[in-house]
C-alpha cells in the first residue's frame, strides 16, 4: 500500500470514529470503543489538529494527494437565458 493510500485510509478511519462518537451522542447511540495504543494518537492528537485547520486549507492538502481528481474533468456548460 502506498504512503498516500495508507495515510488516507488511516486518517479516514479515525475521523469516522470521532464523527461516530460526535453524531452518535446527538442521537443517543452507544459510541465506538476508545482506540488503544497508536490509535489514541490518531484520535486525541491527529483528529483535533485536523479539525483545527480551516476546511479550505484541508481541502487544498487533500487535493494534492495523487488521484483522478487531478486529471481533466470539464465542467458542463449550462445554457443561459430562456429555453424558448
Amino acid at each position: 500500500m502506498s504512503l498516500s493510500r495508507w495515510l488516507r485510509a488511516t486518517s479516514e478511519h479515525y475521523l469516522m470514529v470521532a464523527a461516530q462518537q460526535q453524531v452518535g451522542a446527538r442521537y443517543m447511540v452507544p459510541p465506538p470503543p476508545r482506540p488503544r495504543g497508536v490509535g489514541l494518537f490518531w484520535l486525541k492528537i491527529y483528529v483535533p489538529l485536523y479539525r483545527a485547520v480551516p476546511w479550505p486549507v484541508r481541502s487544498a492538502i487533500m487535493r494534492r494527494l495523487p488521484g483522478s481528481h487531478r486529471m481533466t474533468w470539464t465542467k458542463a456548460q449550462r445554457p443561459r437565458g430562456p429555453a424558448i
Partner: protein
Amino acid sequence: MAQRIVVVGGGAAGIGAAGAAKGTDPSADVRVYTEFEDVGYSPCGIPYVHGKEIPDFDRLFLATKEAYAGQGLDIHYETSVTALNTRDKAVSVHGEADVGYDKLIVATGFDYAAPAVPGTDLDGLYYVKNIRRAIEWDKVLDGVRTAVVIEASPLGLEMVTALCHRGIETHLIDPSAWALAMATDPDIVAPVQQSWAEKGAKLHFNTTLTGFLGSGSIRAVATSAGELPCDIAVVCTKKEANTRLARAAGLHIGSAGGIIVDERMQTSIPEVWAAGDCIEVPHSVTDIPIQGLSGSHAYSQGKVAGTNAAGGDRRYQPVSVPWGMVAGDWMIGGVSLSETLASALGIPHVVGVAEGISRARYYPGVEKVRVKLLAEPGELRLIGAQMVGREGIKERADFLAMAVRLGITVADLATMENVYSPPIGALNEPIALAAQNLLAGMRS
C-alpha cells in the same frame, strides 16, 4: 485494417465497454477476457435470490452467451489475463500466446478487503460475487441454522435481510456504531435495525472481528465481544479496487486505491482506458477521489471507456453518488454526504429534517418518509441528503443527486413544485418540508 480492442474483465464495466466499443466502431475486433464462467449478469441480484424474493438465478443473466456472440463480441470465458505489456501493446493470456491490441480497456473490478485475522482459509466463508458460487451457496443455505454477516456494508445489509427472510438465525458484526456508518446516519438506519431485531437478527455493533474458528470448516466467529457459533460467515467487507495487473503494468494508482483516470476514462498510459470498480473518480462536492460505487456507475463508466477507445468522444462527470436499498422492512437512501461523513471530513454544514408522507394522508398504503438535507452554510447549496421510508426513496435520491450536481439551493427546494395525486404523492413534498425546516432553523 480493423482495430483490435481488448477488454480485461467481464463485469458491468467490461461488458458496457465492449458493447459501446462495438457500437462506436462496428468493424472493430472487440475481445473480452474474463476469468469467470459468465459475463453480463447482475451480481446485485444475488442477495435477493438467497432471500427468495427472486425465484431463481437464471433471471439475473442479462443476455445469453449466444446473444453476445451475435453482437460481434468475442468473449473468452474462464481465461485469465496474467499481464499487461503496454510497451509492446499486448496482453499475456494464461495458456495462450500473447494477444496484441490497438486499444486496451482495464475493467478488473474489485476484491473484498481480506479480513486480517486467522482462519480465513476455513471452509464456510462466503464472499458474494460470482453467480456460479452463489448457486452452490444457495443450496448450502438450505442446511444453515446460524450465520454471521461480517460488516454492515451495503451488501451486508442486503444479506442480513435475505438470511432473515430465509429463516436463518442471523448475527451481524461491525466495528462501527451503527449499520452502514460510512454512508448514513443513526437516525436514518434506526428503523432498519429495529426491523431486523423484530425478525430475530442479533446486531453486534462496536464489535471487531478477531478470527474465524474451526477445524477445516468454520464453527464460530471470534469477536472483541466473544465467540459467535455459526455454520457460515458471509464476508461483506469493503470493496477494494483490483489493480494488480494495472499496477504491475505501471498505470498510476490514486490515494483511494483505484486506477487514475480522466473524464474520458483514459489512464496514465496512452491507448489504455479503465472503468468500473478498479478506478477512482472525483466526488462532485468534495473533489476527493472515491472508489467502489454501484453497478450503474460501473456500467456507465464502461460505456464511456468503450466509446472513447473505439474513436468516439464521451465524457464522464464527477459523481454525486445517489444510493438506495431495501434493508429490513424499509427503504433507505441518500446522496453525497451524510451528517456523519460531513462531520468526519470536517465540512461545514447545516441540517434540515422533516418527516412527511408518501401519498395523500387518507389514501391506503400511505407511508412516512423521513428526509434529511445537508447544505453548505453560505449559499445553502445542497451537499447531501439521507432518507428512510417504505416507498419513493429511490426517486428522491435520483432527484437530489441532480440537485447536488447542479448546485441547487435549499431555497430552491423549499419552494419546489411537486406532484400531488392521492395515490402517488402528498400535498406537501417531504423534501420541501425538510428544506423549509432548514431555513426556519437558520432564522431562529
